[in-house]
């Protein structure tokens, strides 16, 4: 009896190819990342260049940048705890952005060439973001270093600034670090939003969604730190969280309702609303990750005693939804057919 070799599911989003011979799996392998090589056909094609590691990178960058900016704009970084004498919120943002950077470097085809990624800030958002990452880590660390406490000593206390940016020098470091953090939050959305190749990504709504979702995740982290430090959650924090969630909600809905018939975007919307992500996106990201936390914030504003519970639940929901938003956005990136509609 002759055996038959069948190739199963070359078009999985994760890019896996499974070969089956006589009902048994004989090999598994990765598909080439260029999805145009699957089938020589004029049709919409789902990108598979970027996936989980990029979603992780995007999420960590957004939380890290937002945490630094919002805690300093609200002037509460000193009230969120200290580690080695330095503000915990600042240290968490450094760690998250450093880990995000390492995830990005790990995912590069040639990780040792990362410094070359700083060479094209004139037109590449990845290059601008890489510069902002380094600038944030350098200026942010320099800003908080005078507060470093080892045992009972402050070895760098003689430096002419402190982490509260009370002096002109400290203020300069703080402003540069905050601008860099803002670029760090924004650039991942711009990386997707600038090229016209993938219609669903090519929209101002994507960076707006990513920045507002990043701000919401960062505010979730801030209110969680307040609860962890036994500090009462302030109304300002809840209002900022509400604003971030409201902006994200409007950007999500606006993006879902506009240009719905554009080739490429139409297929993306089908995947989001009627296909593989019909539960995760509308229910998980929009419902549980945006609307429910928004309602909980209103509850927290009206009932002060509920705020610790609201803070914890909001942090979990908003963070999970933030990651899911980024992952789903990457996975519904569809290249429009290279030639117009079939007539």
């Amino acid at each position, binding site marked *: 009896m002759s055996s038959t070799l069948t190739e199963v599911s070359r078009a999985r989003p994760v890019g896996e190819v499974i070969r089956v011979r006589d009902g048994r799996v004989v090999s598994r392998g990765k598909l*080439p990342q260029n999805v145009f090589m699957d089938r020589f056909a004029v049709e919409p094609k789902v990108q598979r260049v970027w996936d989980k590691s990029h979603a992780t990178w995007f999420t960590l960058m957004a939380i890290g940048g937002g945490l630094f900016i919002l805690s300093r704009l609200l002037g509460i970084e000193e009230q969120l705890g200290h580690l080695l004498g330095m503000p915990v919120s600042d240290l968490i943002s450094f760690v998250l952005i450093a880990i995000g950077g390492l995830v990005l470097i790990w995912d590069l085809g040639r990780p040792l060439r990362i410094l070359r990624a700083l060479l094209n800030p004139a037109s590449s958002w990845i290059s601008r973001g890489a510069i902002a990452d380094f600038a944030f880590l350098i200026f942010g660390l320099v800003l908080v270093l005078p507060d470093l406490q080892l045992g009972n000593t402050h070895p760098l206390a003689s430096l002419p600034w402190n982490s509260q940016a009370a002096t002109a020098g400290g203020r300069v470091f703080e402003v540069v670090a905050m601008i860099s953090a803002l670029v760090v939050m924004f650039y991942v959305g711009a990386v*997707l939003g600038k090229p016209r190749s993938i219609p669903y990504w090519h929209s101002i709504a994507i960076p707006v969604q990513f920045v507002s979702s990043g701000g919401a995740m960062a505010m979730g982290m801030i209110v969680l730190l307040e609860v962890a430090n036994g500090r009462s959650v302030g109304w300002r924090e809840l209002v900022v969280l509400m604003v971030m969630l409201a902006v994200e909600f409007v950007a999500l809905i606006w993006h879902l309702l506009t240009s719905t018939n554009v080739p490429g975007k139409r297929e993306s919307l089908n995947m989001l609303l009627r296909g593989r992500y019909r539960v995760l996106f509308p229910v998980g990201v929009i419902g549980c990750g945006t609307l429910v936390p928004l309602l909980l914030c209103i509850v927290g504003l009206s009932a002060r005693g509920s705020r610790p519970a609201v803070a914890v639940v909001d942090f979990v929901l908003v963070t999970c939804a933030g990651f899911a938003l980024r992952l789903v956005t990457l996975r519904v990136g569809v290249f*429009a057919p290279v030639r117009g509609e*079939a007539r």
Partner: protein
Amino acid sequence: MTRWAMVIDTARCVGCQACTIACKTENATPADVWYAPVAEQVRGSYPSARTTFVPSLCNHCKDAPCVKACPTRALSRRPDGIVMYEQKKCCGSRACMNACPYGALHLYEGSRGETWQRGGRPEEMLRNRRAASRFSGRGEKWQMGQRTEETLQDRQAAARYSEGTIQKCTFCAHRIDYGIEHGLVPGIDPEATPACVVTCPAECRVFGDLEDDDSVVNRYLRDRGPTYTLRPEARTGAHVFYVD
């Protein structure tokens, strides 16, 4: 100033994929990497359905999104309009792959991917081909591009594939440069013309200098127009034009 461009007459294309294979042979690309695929598109419905073919390749765009997206300047546009890549500069961010609307950029995944399980590494492919060439008595010449010495191509092809980096169609820049160096005219002399153009049995591809009014490309455009480019909404300023 020279500006290389290609015109593809889809009315002539018979979908034989000879250009696809010629490109693969010329550039010794890895398995699963095709610089010049011919895509099929079914148009209409029964009883008037028909299949049309869209030969595609890097469009060597004037406003190339891949060049803009590349963080390391590994992709660049030559003065003659050809978008080139330098693997030694590429960090493998793959931003170019998602920025290109035509799917013209490829990551050489090397042993990490499935690629080499089927076709072998390019160095091995080249060694095997060299051995076969000697065995069949063809000497040191390639079957295609007779005047291009094998050793030169070996080096070029081997240098192109560095694991974790990007590779793409270069309009066969090595043939163009070789031809110009030897007084040949790209688009006219086969040795100085991209392999896909030379091979096409239906002569549906035309190559030449867009800035030269008398070039074969401009004459073809004048005779056969109007033309269109792929994904015009992407506003890339593509240098590959199509006529139906």
